[in-house]
C-alpha cells in the first residue's frame, strides 16, 4: 500500500477523494478548489465543535455535529471518512463517550491526512 509519510490515508484513498470532489464539483457547476475549501473548512469547524461537545459530555450535540460532518463527506463521496464519522456518531448517540471520542480522533486523523494531501502535503 502506498502510504503518505506520517499520514493515515494512503495515496490511493487521497486520489479517490480528489477524483470524487472533482466529479461532484463538475456536476454541480462549482470550481474544484471552491468545493475542496468548503469541504475542508466545514469539516474542520464541525470536528472542532464536536470535540468540545464530546469533552463537555454533550453527546447529543456531538452526535449532531459529527452527523453533519459525515454527511458532508458522504455527499462528496469521500466514503471511508464518512463511514468512520458515522461510527463516531452512533457511539455518541449510544452514550459511549470514550469509544466515541476514540472513533472521532481516528476519523479526524484521516480527515487531516486527506485534507493535508489535497492541499499540497500532510498537515502536522
Amino acid at each position, binding site marked *: 500500500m502506498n502510504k503518505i509519510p506520517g499520514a493515515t490515508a494512503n495515496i490511493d484513498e487521497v486520489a479517490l477523494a480528489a477524483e470524487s470532489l472533482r466529479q461532484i464539483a463538475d456536476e454541480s457547476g*462549482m470550481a474544484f478548489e471552491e468545493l475542496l475549501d468548503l469541504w475542508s473548512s466545514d469539516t474542520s469547524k464541525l470536528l472542532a465543535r464536536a470535540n468540545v461537545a464530546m469533552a463537555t459530555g454533550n453527546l447529543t450535540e456531538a452526535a449532531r455535529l459529527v452527523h453533519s460532518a459525515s*454527511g458532508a463527506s458522504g*455527499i462528496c463521496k469521500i466514503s471511508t471518512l464518512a463511514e468512520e464519522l*458515522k461510527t463516531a456518531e452512533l457511539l455518541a448517540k449510544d452514550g459511549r463517550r470514550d469509544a466515541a471520542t476514540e472513533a472521532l480522533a481516528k476519523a479526524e486523523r484521516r480527515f487531516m491526512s486527506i485534507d493535508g494531501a489535497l492541499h499540497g502535503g500532510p498537515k502536522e
Partner: protein
Amino acid sequence: MKQILVIEDNAVAANLYRSVLSAAGYHVDVASDGEEGLAAMHRCHPDLVLLDLMLPKIEGIEVLRQIRSDPALKSVPVVVTSNAYTSARMDELRAAGATEIITKAKITPKEIARVVAAMLNAAKQA
C-alpha cells in the same frame, strides 16, 4: 422561474444544491435551521422544498408536520434528504407527508436536480 427552498444546515450540501439547482434554472433560497426554514416558507412561497432531517432548533420532521398542517403550505412538495434512515423513520416520514425521501450519500447533486424536476412536473400535472 420556479422557486426552490433548501432547508439544510450543512454548508457543503447547501452550496452544492444551490449551485446545481441554480444551474438548472431554478431560483434557490437556503435556510440553515428549521425555524428559519419555516419563516422562509411563509416569506418566499416556494414551489418545492428540499428538507434535511437533522436540523438545529426545529427537527426536519417537525418542520414537515408544520408545513402539512398549514393550509397555505400543505400542498408544496417536500423532498426529505438525510443519511439517517431506518425503516421506522421512513414510515414516520411518509406518514408526516414527505413527497420523496432521498439518502444524500447515495445520490449525486445532479441526480437531486433530476428528482426536483420530476417532482415539479408531477405537481404540475396533479
